């Protein structure tokens, strides 16, 4: 695996749109070619080289390419957008749309991510060591096909609207979240190891939500079913199972209504 290191040298005055920073775009390219890739600031088109020191070169394929992004990238959007393979490590706090529409590979952020990280995600492994903003692993506006696959793990807290219109994959938040978890969820799994204040699983059709901490106000459309012992994210624990959202439509299987599942740790 070849490593390309991007070190920010000039901060954008507005924001930088750097959707070219992916293993897919870097593979097969030398440092100078990578530096010549486009980046946008407002209506102007520049190159990555204007903002980043580029060293190393891409591997033969995306899968053989590892990118390390160093320095303050808090004004850089779209890092890792649509990546399909390979690896990106961001050492600081990137801005919005990090790993958006990601399809594969590994993305590690050592700091925090802003809103819309991992939206429309289809596959891959996305780890955020700090906190995540709003709309983590959510659907793009208007799309009923939200996150379809892959894993997002947040070691800190997450904002509101995580897993909005989620269809598949897994989101794990080690800390707390804000309101609206898994709204309109139809599949996949959300695990919150801290608290989720309210509006959890609203309009949920299918899928599973686990909450280890507390929920201040439950949605009215969740009905208690039973207690269960479950293994979740490698740990065993006792959970109370609720079915919901009973105000929402649900498919039927063998004459039985299939609900979404909300598991509250006892």
């Amino acid at each position, binding site marked *: 695996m070849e490593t390309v290191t991007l070190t920010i040298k000039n901060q954008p005055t507005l924001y930088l749109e750097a959707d070219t920073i992916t293993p897919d775009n870097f593979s097969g390219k030398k440092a100078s070619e990578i530096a010549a890739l486009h980046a946008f600031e407002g209506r102007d088109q520049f190159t990555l080289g204007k903002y980043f020191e580029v060293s190393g070169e891409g591997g033969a394929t995306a899968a053989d390419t590892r990118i390390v992004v160093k320095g303050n990238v808090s004004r850089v959007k779209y890092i890792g957008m649509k990546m399909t393979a390979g690896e990106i490590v961001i050492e600081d706090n990137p801005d919005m749309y990090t790993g958006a529409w990601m399809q594969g590979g590994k993305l590690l952020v050592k700091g925090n991510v802003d809103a819309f990280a991992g939206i429309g995600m289809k596959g891959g492994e996305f780890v955020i060591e700090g906190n995540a903003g709003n709309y983590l692993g959510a659907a*793009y*506006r208007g*799309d*009923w096909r939200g996150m379809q696959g892959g894993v997002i793990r947040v070691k800190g807290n997450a904002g509101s609207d995580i897993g909005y219109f989620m269809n598949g994959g897994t989101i794990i938040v080690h800390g707390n979240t804000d309101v609206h978890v898994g709204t309109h969820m139809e599949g996949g799994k959300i695990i919150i190891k801290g608290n989720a204040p309210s509006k959890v699983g609203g309009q949920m059709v299918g899928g599973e939500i686990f909450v280890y901490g507390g929920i201040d106000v439950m949605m009215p459309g969740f009905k208690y079913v039973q207690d269960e012992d479950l293994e979740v994210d490698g740990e065993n624990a006792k959970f109370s199972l609720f079915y919901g959202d009973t105000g929402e439509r649900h498919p039927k299987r063998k004459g039985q209504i299939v609900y979404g599942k909300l598991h509250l740790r006892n």
Partner: protein
Amino acid sequence: MTEFLIKNGFVFDPTQGIKGDKADIAVKDGKIVKSSDISSKAKTIDASGKAVMAGAVEIHAHIAGPKVNEGRNYRPEDKLFTYTPKSAGKRMAGGFSIPTTFKTGYEYARMGYTTAIEAAMPPLFARHVHEEIKDTPIIDEGALPVFGNNWFVLEYLKNKEIENTAAYISWLLDVTKGFGVKVVNPGGTEAWGWGLNCLTIDDPVPYFDITPSEIVTGLIEANEYLGLPHSVHIHQNSLGNPGNYTVTLDTLKLAEKFKPKNKFGREQVLHSTHLQFHSYGGDNWGNFESKSKEVMDYVNTQKNVTVDTGCVTLDETTTMTADGPFEHHLTELNHLKWANVDVELETAAGIVPYVYSPDIKVCEIQWAIGLELALFAKDLMRCFITTDHPNAGPFIRYPRIIKWLMSAEARKERIDTFKHSAKMVEATHLAGIERELDLYEIAMMTRAGPAKALGMSSIYGGLKPGMDADVVVYDFNPQKPHKPDDIEKAFSRAAYVMKTGVPVVIDGEVVNNGNKRTLWVHAKVNENPQVMRDIKDKFLRYYSVTQANYDVSKHFVPNPYVIEVDAT
């Protein structure tokens, strides 16, 4: 003085019976002229080795107005990653199934379409329709106001008052700058005001004491009384339901007792649109099957009926129709976002996204039915290609449909890669049809035929001297061997398009925004104080706007092409 000579192309022009002969097309001041009528200074366009046709005419598409725009605004995901940036002289253009107005004009032109009819204008929203038409470059456009659920029409026709109906139509065309009489789910959309529907032509319309069959016959009679350029244009009852082909035949038969009466050369009294959605057998989605043969066997015998196909293109698209109850039914099936607007005294509309998947049996069968209708048609001057854009697919897929119609090999290739191809073959006729349409027949279906059905054959659809200089050159040599995909490619991006004498597309790229016109029909009738009184009364009592604020004033139609009809 602008003169052009489009030289040496293989010309296909059904209005003159030219079937691919090498010929030159001369143009002077926006009109086609005889070659002898232009000077030596005429600019020459070399079309040798290429196919030359008149500009194509879209007879039914939803491209401007409130529901189209609601479709755009409520589907941001339809634009994700598909936008074309702006370039010199061109606006930015986006949207896949519901393109922006700019993209609509550009994309039609690039395929060689120079005229399009917006298929459903809610009269109360006419101003909106015209604002969008004004912002759609290049192509001439007209819009059909909807009449089939209009309270005036229901009340007049309940009492068989044809003259009053005609006077009302004339008034409405005038104030909305409309082109003709559209009927959508007659009676059913009014019933939808109460959440109900009319699924056969004999279902009574709640509270109005009239049936769809009476609405349709009354409107045909009024339309011919006026002698409008276009006939009644109908979207029938029970759209999209298994087994609906019997309703379709029942409706078509209503036309039997009428004769066309107009000075525009139109020969039909009823245009039945997006027939694909109305040619279904079976009684549920499990035994759903094609009844295209039954329907086309009838259409083939009836000279006074024209149809368009409504071909399914197998894309993710956005359905939108004034058939309010149908869209509600659809959202109950696919659970996707549902928009609806009921329009006071007039109509309704619904919108639901839809994914025609090649992995779903019903979609595969629908795809086959659309193509079968065209391939069973005996008279292609009466059967036109549409996708009921965007309902069965976006209009940018016309080149693909043309490929499927012209190539049995392309059809087979598609069928073979369906998930349920065996079941699809069993429920349809398509696999057994060998027929391959030729360019002359395509010119009938996309040019001469629709132009004639719209009553516009004096200026559109052909290359006869005196007609508008809407000329298209396709980089397709009918005398050379070709692969099916070459057809799609050639029709997607015309080599050269001229609109009323102005070159608008060169090598598939838009080079000029043309001088688009809005077509509308001014039908003069005798003074009718009763109808004027009824109109005043309805505005005072039931409308939420005043009558004075209903008219579409002139500045919304900056470049009109008015068709005069005298029915006094």
